[in-house]
């Protein structure tokens, strides 16, 4: 018998629909193709405790956080996009950079640490504002 090809995206889509609609089970059939997804209502980890307060990372950016080209902050600190206040930013969206180019500065304990490009590429998005605080691992920009 031939190896079956699982339509993962369809399953993911149904799982998302479960979440969105608050359903616990969806059965879906099309021709001879049929799938059923179930989520038991009880004991989901993150529901058993109050939601995290004062999260630093806004929900809007979680999508960006998943992007393969994301460059993350190597430390806790304050972001500076330019060498000095009002100066020209190191990079702008659309800019092309070579590996090792300085992308921005992160100030921690009065010392300015340069964040350099891990590889050559094009800056498609800058996710942080000048002077914004960032935590470890927070997405800074997207380099494609």
């Amino acid at each position: 018998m031939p190896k079956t090809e699982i339509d993962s995206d369809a399953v993911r889509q149904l799982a998302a629909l479960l979440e969105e609609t608050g359903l616990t089970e969806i059965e879906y059939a099309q021709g001879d193709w049929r799938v059923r997804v179930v989520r038991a209502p009880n004991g989901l980890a993150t529901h058993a405790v109050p939601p995290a307060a004062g999260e630093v990372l806004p929900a809007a950016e979680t999508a960006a956080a998943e992007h393969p080209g994301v460059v993350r902050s190597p430390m806790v600190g304050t972001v500076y996009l330019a060498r000095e206040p009002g100066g020209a930013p190191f990079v702008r969206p659309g800019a092309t950079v070579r590996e090792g180019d300085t992308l921005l500065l992160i100030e921690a304990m009065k010392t300015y640490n340069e964040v350099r490009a891990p590889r050559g590429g094009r800056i498609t998005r800058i996710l942080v504002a000048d002077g914004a605080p960032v935590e470890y691992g927070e997405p800074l920009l997207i380099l494609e």
Partner: protein
Amino acid sequence: MFEKILIANRGEVALRIHRACREMGIATVAVHSTADADAMHVRLADESVCIGPPSPRESYLNIPAILSAATIAGVDAIHPGYGFLSENAEFASIVEDHGFTFIGPSAEHIAMMGDKLGARARMRALGLPVVPGSDGPVEDDAAALSIAARIGYPLLIKAAAGGGGKGIRRADNGDELLAQIAMARNEARSAFGSDIIYFERLLLRPRHIEIQILADGQGGVVYIGERDCSLQRNRQKLLEEAPSPALSPLEREELGTLACDAMRSIGYKNAGTLEFLYEDGRFYFLEMNTRLQVEHPVTEMISGIDIVREQIRIAAGMPLDYEQSDIVLTGHAIECRLNAENPVTFAPSPGRVTEYHPAGGLGVRVDSGLYAGYVVPPYYDSLVAKLIVHGRNRTECLLRLRRALEECVIGGIETTIPLHLRLTNAPDFMNGVYDITWLERFVTSAEGSKTP
């Protein structure tokens, strides 16, 4: 009073500190590694900042990251909890240099007590009894042999810069002594960067008894009774109780008063614990911990004093609002450390907690960051919950403890609950007849290792 405090720790103690702040109307900032993003105290804190990867060196021991977080969050003070940076003098001074208040003693006092050898001499000079020993570094082998002859065997070789049981070796006679010294020096050099060692008489069947003190640095010093922490395995405490089944009220008062006088004369500020060995009715000062201790709840249960709250008040410059005569100890309390470990082999058991149901009811307190679905990370200490029980007397406390242990459910990982259940049925423990060597024997005995 402070408006915002950064909690520079993790696990149950981070939650413990958060609760104290919450009850004082103080906002909290949780700093955490990527492995602790879902921790209970992170979820409950007013703000949270991720400061590094799982490795403690890069997160909970990462001084620059913690101070950056403190600056960004704009906190007034930092509570170090226990372990990690809680007894790091450098951290304490850097914190103060950056304009934050360190909720703990001065860097000087941390350093003073961090040097076990110096602390021992100091406390001895201040009238505290110490274990007979070399009273100073042991230079060469000739000196070692003559000093050892004076102290008598068996004796312990200890690293001056040591702690946590590292660099400690036993010698039963002159032949062993020189060989053990060599190994002790090597261990000490690699572990602490110093090979200075000293000798101490080895007590064969002592109890571990520690005095809890509070000092406001303004002359106010009190002791809140003692804790008996003799139930240890590999020098790790497993169960603590207060008061000690072995101590008389007179001994308590004598030792407590000595401890308070010593603290007053060095001008100590913060909560603190003086550890003693107790054998044949005599006490021997071991060392002082200049921080909150894991087992502080048993003292809180019998005294009604919130020790973390007192730490914060003292750090804020407030004097103790009571005197020794105001402190009344009522009933008996026992703390069981519920570790994520196999209860027989003590192999760590991290992983997903599938069910969590703490015991409840009269006289039962649970301090834990666990919840159903939480994943115990493999990178840190295995302590995941503390079950603390109070009763009007030790017997009532023991029966309540057994009842509470039977109610506790922690599914998905292995814990020391079964061992504690066996303990509560061990005659020696029920009778309070045990010393620091007892638990090691118990866990290897049939009675102690049988699966329930």
